[in-house]
């Protein structure tokens, strides 16, 4: 027997599971009609390079969202990474490795700070990571006095290498996705991440080291932001106080559009990949159509609201 309710229920499940991929397909069809230039090899290469930039941060953001957290501090980490790479590297190619390692170490510290605030001090993630964002930005500016010194080593430009569409950032993005899709699905750690996000009290009573898992996820979130920051710095090859602005909120948007729930425990990286592509294609289409950049924000906003509305319709009846 198929009642109306059944049909609605199936529709909900369908939307929750496949909605984002359908949306991506429709968007690509629309692009084929409106902006066929999008499918030129050069354009695809640019879109994918930018998508990788966003996508790498979004992996970390997805992990944090899965434990019912949120990381606003990634924006600060981009700037910090750029400054550290320039200061430590200071134009010398042999200093690239120490520069990147220093940025990763500092990033890990920021993530640890986020994690400790959220777990040990029980600060809500929004407030903790917002505070950390302001702190990291402030510290970076105080250190540079507003005028960043040093030079980005030329050799970091290697990130601009590409083989047809496959650029270094894209390879990084795909590789990290493959690795972390496996971590989430095929390892104990991944299972524990979902368990903590799904029901923290049950996780604690099941013997899961809940705080350690949450802290580790914040550290990973920061490390992904550092990696993305290094790629971005290599791309522009100079230090910029506004580097990567917008990527922080876009990373949250990509994960949410991709079906990762704000309340934790639901979602995953495949959805986030689709979310990243949707956001990036939309941005590019706006440019190709010759519309103002403001229109880009309006469209982005509508897409995010639309996705959230769809998922709330798709959520199980309480």
């Amino acid at each position, binding site marked *: *027997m*198929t*009642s109306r*309710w*059944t049909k609605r*229920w*199936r529709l909900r499940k369908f939307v929750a599971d496949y909605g984002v991929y359908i949306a991506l397909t429709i968007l690509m069809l629309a692009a084929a009609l409106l902006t066929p230039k999008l499918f030129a090899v050069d354009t695809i290469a640019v879109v994918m390079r930018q998508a990788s930039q966003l996508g790498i941060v979004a992996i970390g953001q997805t992990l944090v969202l899965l434990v019912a957290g949120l990381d606003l501090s990634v924006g600060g980490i981009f700037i910090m990474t750029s400054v550290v790479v320039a200061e430590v590297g200071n134009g010398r190619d042999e200093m690239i490795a120490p520069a990147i390692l220093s940025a990763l170490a500092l990033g890990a510290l920021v993530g640890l700070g986020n994690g400790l605030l959220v777990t040990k001090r029980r600060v809500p993630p929004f407030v903790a990571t917002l505070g950390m964002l302001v702190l990291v930005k402030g510290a970076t500016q105080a250190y540079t006095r507003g005028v960043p010194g040093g030079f980005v080593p030329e050799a970091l430009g290697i990130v601009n290498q590409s083989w047809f569409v496959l650029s270094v950032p894209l390879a990084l993005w795909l590789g990290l996705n493959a690795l972390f899709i496996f971590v989430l699905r*095929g*390892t*104990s*750690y991944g*299972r*524990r991440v*979902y*368990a903590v996000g*799904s*029901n923290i*009290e*049950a*996780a*604690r*009573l*099941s*013997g*899961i*080291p809940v705080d350690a898992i949450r802290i580790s996820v914040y550290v990973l979130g920061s490390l992904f932001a550092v990696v993305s920051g290094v790629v971005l710095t290599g791309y522009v090859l100079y230090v910029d106080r506004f580097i990567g602005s917008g990527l922080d909120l876009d990373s949250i948007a990509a994960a949410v559009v991709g079906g990762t729930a704000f309340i934790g*425990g*639901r979602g995953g990286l495949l959805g986030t990949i689709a979310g990243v592509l949707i956001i990036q294609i939309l941005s590019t289409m706006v440019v190709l159509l010759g519309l103002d950049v403001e229109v880009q924000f309006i469209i982005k906003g509508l897409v995010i609201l639309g996705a959230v509305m769809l998922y709330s319709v798709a959520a*199980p009846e309480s």
Partner: protein
Amino acid sequence: MSEPILEMRGISKSFAGVRALRDVSFRCQAGLVYGLVGENGAGKSTLMKILAGAYKADAGAIIYKGRPRHAASTGEIIASGISIIYQELALVPQMSAAENIFLGREPRNAIGILDLGQLHARSQELLSRLGVALDTRLPVGELTIAQQQLVEIAKALSQDADLIVMDEPSAILAGSELDQLFDIIAALKAQGVTIVYISHRLEEVFRIADEVTVLKDGEVVDSRPIGQLDRHTLVRSMVGRSLDEVFPQTDHEQGDLVLAAEDIATDTILDGVSLRLHAGEILGIAGMVGSGRTELARALFGADPLTRGEVRLAGKSLQWQTPSQAIRAGVALVPEDRKSQGLFTALSVRNNITISILSRISRLGILRRGQEDKVVSAARQRLSIVMTSPEQETQTLSGGNQQKVVLAKWLETAPAVIILDEPTRGVDVGAKFEIYKLMRQLNDRGLAIIMISSELPEIIGMSDRILVMNGGRVAGELAGEAVDEERIIKLATLGGAEAQSA
């Protein structure tokens, strides 16, 4: 006989292709108390949600106060005089009792400003109709659950309810609170209010109902005045099994001392409890909600750190700081509140069952699916968990199957001691019976069980010994011939010393 105040005729309802109600008819005369009984999943709550307008029936008609009722919003239905008090109370904890009672309908003075004097005076008046005294200024969050329930009832009265549905009101009450609820129901009945009382505890239905309707698998299987019923026929029509078969008997031998606690206390109400538990034994813990039963379980499991005393497992002294240490030592806790503490509702059956033994089924942190499949299918068979596949989300399982999944998770840790806190709450009678059978099997294999329960027949039927708690301490221990309901209630309500002198 006068016209019925409510008549539900031929109600049918399906969810996702599963039939929840089939051609159900239910009628109420004004001023009587109706018991609506049946196993979990029998359709009681669905029927009442249709009455409340929360669900729409697929077929059937509702005639209320002599007029057919058509599709209406829940607000209109409340205004028409039907109030439903759900198990999970719908109050705003930060607001006072009075503010909750008149939420959205606050009395105002001539210029439209909130009239606090009126608000409290009218709330007091409603509460006195119920024969209770309560400070209406206190935030509801600071009241006991029983008092919160009273606030809900007062709220229903403030809406001039002629028909009040109480969905398993006793599930959250204990002892004297229940008596108070029954007094209130009697008072409401005397004032001409019709009550529909949903429960699966038959003793209560026999105490207060004038007429009983039994639902089974979405159909009415019996409906008649209470005088024409006895417990045996009622149970048989509910489950198709008689009462004697509910508690499986066994004659296992009692084994060695496994767990001993000496004067343990934590930062909670728990204040100096000692107990001894043997292999193959079921130790029942009785007592009212808030007597320290759950806190005892948490202390034995390392969920709350001990502030004094000692726990010994197989002779070794343990200082547990975290549940994971307790789990490794061989203690398991099936917590009282399944949804908030036991189950990962958004995760699959598979992920739930193996979450505590991930290290056993993985190598270098990488899961071995083959091993996991074996564990899951063995657990599924052993506990006869009904599911479509191991990937099914546990929130879509019935209460009984959810509880089996939680039990399966803990049995996988191969515990020597398993603590069950209200193991059959929110579980239908059929699954209850299976859980009892499982407990006996575990006993026979030498597992020691501590069972906390509010249901006296369950405690008495299953336990080898019973500890009764009161105010964070053990008020008394009963075993063998000494076990009877009255003694347990006395110890639970009065405490050890007073119960003896009483």
